[in-house]
């Protein structure tokens, strides 16, 4: 009881609405807020769409295993992009030599070192897109 009196006294003292007074007025506020929200919706000019992003689709059967490419080779899908048409260049099993800044000769390339280039049209965000992509 003492607690309630203290709350009441505080409500009377402050000019801004307390949490309790706001709660008491909620039944009256709700229709007003809803009306305002509806009015706001009526003035929104554009409807949101959900077309996905403009990034390329991965190759589905590679993507399901957590990979976006496979080594270049005969009869293997050469592109890294699905829904694609255009130029593709691939190579694999790269080997070469080089020198580091200490003068050490260091080879590069392994049987799985492969590169890829794709240039052309791909489908994303429900529209044709143009791009150049490489995998190094």
């Amino acid at each position: 009881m003492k607690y309630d009196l203290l709350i009441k006294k505080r409500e009377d003292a402050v000019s801004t609405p307390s949490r309790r007074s706001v709660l008491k007025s909620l039944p009256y506020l709700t229709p007003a807020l809803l009306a305002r929200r509806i009015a706001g919706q009526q003035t929104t000019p554009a409807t949101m769409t959900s077309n996905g992003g403009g990034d390329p689709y991965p190759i589905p059967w590679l993507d399901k295993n957590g990979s976006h490419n496979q080594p270049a080779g005969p009869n293997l899908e050469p592109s890294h992009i699905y829904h694609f048409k255009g130029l593709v260049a691939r190579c694999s099993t790269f080997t070469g030599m080089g020198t580091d800044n200490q003068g050490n000769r260091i080879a590069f390339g392994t049987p799985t070192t492969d590169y890829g280039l794709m240039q052309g049209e791909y489908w994303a965000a429900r529209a044709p897109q143009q791009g150049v992509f490489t995998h190094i």
Partner: protein
Amino acid sequence: MPAAGLTISADRKEITLEMKDVPVIDQPRWPALDSIATPALMTFKMVWKSTGDPVQYENPTQQFRFIGTRAECHLEAAVSVPSIGFAWKSDPIGTSAASFAMIGEEVNGRYYSPR
């Protein structure tokens, strides 16, 4: 990648891909889960040249068709890892080789239709 890094000959039989100071990561122990990744820069030039030997790969189940030629491919590159003071440069481009390379045109997915 920026389209400016790509040069295609008029007959589409030679492709040059060239990029400078591409931000990459140096991760020698990849794919180990605890492998440390260090920021690095890579400059490279890669050239594909068609050999003229025709190839066609098609898979209706996977919905792709590639029509092109086998190719030769060469690469020269330079890599630096500034934080550890490491740098490396390959020998001239003609000294590298790939045992398999190809260039051509592909359609897949929604652009593919079986013949």
